[in-house]
């Protein structure tokens, strides 16, 4: 859907000339503050640009200042100011700050927020910047550029991806007499392993009903069964399709058949895995940095294929250029130089438990050599699905977790739970259309 229009828009802007101000292709959303970006490094007068991000935990608070220091020392005419804050604060502060002309020149956001910001006119259309920096969809995992596009325009430039994987506690497998050398990759093998574990008195996968990570598992399964979250133009929820019911039923059956305990609390499963009480946990690549793993024998693998096709959930983060009131074109151009440099130097980002988005960086064998645990996640990217790019989509997504929670706690059967959630999501989607325009 978006791919086609995005390509046409790209072609159109290309025809108009790369140096054209971004406003040329803009409508109501992005007015003013276009930038002339060239593929070369920014060579205008010295500017200071501010960069907002939500990197407050893990390795990032050490890593990011180092990267920025290096960038600043290599660029005499650009000074990047790092402004880290909680993701929720970025969300809250961005709209008013941008409208007042006090927002950042460049920021990083999660894939499911980009369209929301774009629809509110907070972002500059980045089609020209993408073009000028020489990026194309082929420079990133398939589908990732689209995850930062909205309504036919590119707003986000990919920075990182964080797919789900299957974490395995080998000690538990060995104790149950299962050879940990081969990790189950399809439904038969997976169910056989769970059955063997059950025979040994171990509940092999603990299913939870929360965003982390039950919702991610459900979405992976939904895609594996050939379903999707929403229809093409994101006007209707489709997660209550047969595929959705199959996916959710698989999860509730794990509980019903005793492969999972009932009533797993939030994070109960990763705690259980680390404590040697369960063998498998579907969790995100970010867990590779969890120090709890140091004390157990573990591996991580691609999530098994339960449905009819390979698929896995992944979230993503994207660079955005802000449409501040009176945005200085030079600053946006400098920000583009910064983004390109950061992506080119993103190998170290793996340290934070996220995968760099740029293929060039990710495909460098040195990355896997240094971070061998990332390999299964890299291997899954060709069939990873990213979050839906539509304004206000997180409000609709919230109902998926409610449905999941109701189903795994036995309040409703999977179909009923999903149907109820889809009906509510449809209302929110309708509301979003009027709220954000189309």
């Amino acid at each position, binding site marked *: 859907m978006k791919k086609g229009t995005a390509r046409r828009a790209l072609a159109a802007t290309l025809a108009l000339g790369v140096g054209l101000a971004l406003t040329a292709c803009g409508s109501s959303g992005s007015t003013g503050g276009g930038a002339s970006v060239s593929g070369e490094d920014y060579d205008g007068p010295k500017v200071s640009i501010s960069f907002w991000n939500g990197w407050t935990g893990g390795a990032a608070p050490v890593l990011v200042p180092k990267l920025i220091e290096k960038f600043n020392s290599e660029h005499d005419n650009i000074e990047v100011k790092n402004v880290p804050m909680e993701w929720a604060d970025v969300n809250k502060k961005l709209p008013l700050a941008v409208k007042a002309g006090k927002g950042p020149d460049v920021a990083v956001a999660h894939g499911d927020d980009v369209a929301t910001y774009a629809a509110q*006119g907070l972002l500059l259309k980045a089609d020209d910047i993408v073009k000028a920096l020489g990026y194309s969809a082929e420079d990133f995992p398939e589908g990732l550029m689209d995850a930062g596009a909205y309504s036919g325009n590119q707003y986000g430039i990919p920075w990182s991806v964080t797919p789900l994987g299957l974490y395995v506690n080998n000690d538990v497998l060995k104790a149950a007499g299962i050879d940990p050398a081969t990790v189950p990759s399809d439904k038969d093998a997976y169910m056989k392993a769970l059955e063997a574990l059950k025979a040994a008195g171990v509940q092999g996968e603990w299913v939870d009903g*929360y965003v982390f990570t039950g919702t991610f598992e459900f979405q992976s399964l939904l895609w594996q069964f050939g379903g999707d979250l929403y229809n093409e133009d994101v006007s209707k929820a489709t997660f209550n399709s047969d595929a959705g019911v199959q996916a959710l039923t698989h999860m509730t059956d794990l509980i019903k058949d005793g492969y999972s305990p009932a009533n797993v609390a939030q994070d109960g499963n990763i705690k259980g895995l680390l404590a040697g*009480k369960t063998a498998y946990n579907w969790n995100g690549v970010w867990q590779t940095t969890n120090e709890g793993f140091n004390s157990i024998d573990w591996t991580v693998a691609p999530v098994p294929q339960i449905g009819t096709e390979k698929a896995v959930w992944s979230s993503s983060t994207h660079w955005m250029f802000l449409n501040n009131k009176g945005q200085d074109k030079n600053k946006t151009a400098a920000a583009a130089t910064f983004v390109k440099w950061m992506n080119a130097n993103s190998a170290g980002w793996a340290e934070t438990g996220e995968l760099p988005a740029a293929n060039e960086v990710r495909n460098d064998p040195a990355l896997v050599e240094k971070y061998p645990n990332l390999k299964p996640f890299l291997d899954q990217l060709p069939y990873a699905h990213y979050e839906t790019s539509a304004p206000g989509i997180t409000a609709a997504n*919230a109902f998926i977790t*409610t449905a999941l*929670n109701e189903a795994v*706690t036995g309040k409703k059967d999977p179909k009923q739970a999903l149907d109820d959630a889809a009906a509510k999501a449809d209302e929110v989607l309708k509301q979003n259309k009027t709220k954000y325009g189309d």
Partner: protein
Amino acid sequence: MAGPNPAAPAVAVPPARRRSRVGKSGAPRRTGTAYLFLAPFLILFGIFVIAPAIFGLVISVTDWSPYKAEQAFIGLQNYIDLFTPGSITFGDFWQSMGATGIFTLLSVPVMLVVPLLLAVLLNNKIKGGTAFRAIFFAPYVLGVAVIGVVWRYVLDTQSGILNYLLGLVGLPSDLPWTVDVPWAWVSLVGVTVWWTLGFNAVILLAGLKGISADLYEAASLDGAGAIRKFFSVTLPGLRPVMLFVTTTTILASANMFGQSFILTKGGPGNATRTVIMYISDQGLAQSNMGAASAMSYILFAVLAIISVINFRLQRERAE
């Protein structure tokens, strides 16, 4: 946002108002001086409480979005939606009001009785009384995020220490403390009581200290026992303090947010999602500012009515 916040109840002004009546008899100059001393507080109060409250009222009659340049006036539509079955907000709003009501009904009696008993115990000249007072008060100084995360470990269904201990004494060891009702309610009330009982206890203790020893002596001379003294001297003597404690506790319980947000995520389904959780989700996460403001004002109206009833009931007996 959660826990008893003594600064919160805007409705708890009547005692102060009564006192200000006394001030009226003074010279105008003295009143001016008083206002001068009050000014620093009043300015902050005006900027951070009164002004936002009025602004909220304005927002509630618009389809406010922080991203639009102009906001459209839509009259009482946001309020009408909240009272129209089948509207996008109706079901979830009243369900969360119900959850808040359940929590308030369950928690307020416990948060009055337990601290009262505690205060009576601490009021006896027992060894280490000060230390106990500090111990009971200690959890109150912790933030809700801290107590939430700590209790999540304790209450985990499979790995939590509580279920482990229950198992040791032969009780069911798989109770879903944070995952399913009614256990989630027990956890939420229990954690909140543990967290905040010290605050109420300290206020009630101060009230107890204010009751004249002569009254107890007189009661003893009349042959009253400990129980009779508690009901005939202690409780009546505490009435003004009780009024304050009851009011702040009801308001704090009705404003519960953090405990549900962290411990149960509002689950199972949305059973423990409180109204503040829903309002903040609508207003801050989904930018439905108009609807969220209208909800806030309905909540405010409900709490104001409850507070007025509470005042009426307790004041009549107090005076």
